[in-house]
């Protein structure tokens, strides 16, 4: 089962240009157009990135689990590497969630780390879980067994996310500002536009990075094959 590259509909250079344009637009909207928050002032602007990055990280983990399922179910030869790259991107964005959340907590509440903040604690648990994913993957020789182990573990991740979230919620009371309520986002106008653009920018950026890493990894595989041939 050697991984081969999949024909993609969107070429990589176009993706790179799109993510550059979107990230620039998002930065401009967040810093120059969106209004200051009534309570938290200027520093609240980190929300646009913190929340978007968190959502992007979830999307990466979900994509990794989906590719893992494809590997186990359809025996798709490309799925293993794609699942790994998606999880890798998810961990990178997860670390960014921890960093941005930490900065926000310091400015808003005066502490770098707050156990009362659901999202931060959850990402710490997820970081530990997915860091072990890499330990697992790199202590098995490349081959079908490694692909199976990685895939099964990635599937555990998507079950662990809601279970941990529930666990952290029932473990304590929370003081995290809840931006999304059951009645939809409690903001409108430019705030909503800025949020949606940052979200789109980060998703496109994550997909671009995913494609870049995947291309590199496939090149590595091809190079190794040529050396052995």
């Amino acid at each position: 089962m050697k991984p081969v590259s999949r024909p993609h509909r969107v070429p990589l250079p176009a993706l790179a240009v799109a993510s550059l344009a979107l990230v620039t637009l998002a930065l401009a909207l967040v810093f120059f157009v969106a209004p200051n928050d009534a309570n938290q002032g200027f520093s609240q602007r980190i929300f646009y990135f913190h929340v978007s990055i968190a959502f992007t990280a979830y999307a990466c983990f979900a994509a990794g689990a989906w590719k893992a399922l494809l590997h186990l179910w359809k025996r798709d030869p490309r799925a293993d590497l794609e699942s790994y790259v998606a999880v890798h991107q998810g961990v990178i964005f997860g670390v960014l969630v921890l960093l941005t959340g930490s900065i926000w907590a310091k400015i808003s509440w005066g502490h770098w780390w707050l156990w009362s903040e659901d999202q931060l604690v959850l990402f710490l648990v997820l970081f530990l879980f997915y860091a072990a994913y890499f330990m697992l993957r790199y202590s098995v020789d490349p081959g079908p067994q490694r692909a199976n182990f990685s895939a099964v573990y990635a599937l555990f991740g998507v079950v662990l996310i809601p279970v941990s979230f529930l666990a952290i919620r029932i473990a304590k009371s929370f003081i995290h500002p809840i931006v999304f309520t059951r009645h939809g986002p409690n903001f409108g106008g430019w705030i909503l536009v800025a949020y949606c653009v940052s979200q789109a920018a980060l998703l496109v950026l994550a997909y671009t990075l995913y494609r870049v890493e995947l291309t590199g990894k496939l090149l590595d595989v091809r190079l190794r094959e040529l050396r052995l041939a």
Partner: protein
Amino acid sequence: MNYAADVRALARKDLLLELRARDTLPAMLLFVVATFVVFHFALPAHSSQLAASGLLWVAIVFTALLGLGRAFVPEREQRVLDGLVLAPCDRSAIWLAKGIATFAFLGAAEIVALPVFALFFHGIDAATVGGVVLADIGICAVGTFLGAMAVATRARDLLLPLLFLPLAIPIVVGGVGASVAGSPGRYLAFLALYDALFALLCWATFEYVVTE
């Protein structure tokens, strides 16, 4: 042979092996009692009873890790797993039987450990015992599964705690909640939910751990 008979035969093999060799259970017992003594000295005098309740769960998780690390060692050393995979039985039966055997060891260790805890620290209520039973199911289901993976890697014993502890955090939340909260019902329900979800996932995917 049907599924239940396969599971029974495999679990019986593990229990018999333990009965004859006595590898795991004495180690777990000694470990858990030693942990309690360490906790006694780690807790400052006059610290709250709640702290001791929390430490009970630390002791349970680490004792379980000790047993889980040993779970697949006989299979590895004697290459029994290859034989089991070739046998005409459902592969998930291997996981279920090993899980039942580990549950028996952990339960036996706790039958001694909980009274010792009550003797050293403070009494234990029914909710804690219920929490321990539910947590044991989750620990054994997930731990046995990860033990089977860890034993096939190069890192082996090093890897199991790293894989297991992030997954054990919800168990600890539910268990400590059941021990210290005024109304333990929701925590016990949470533990039951955890058990059901992860047992199902392990049961469905174990085949991929032992086959290629």
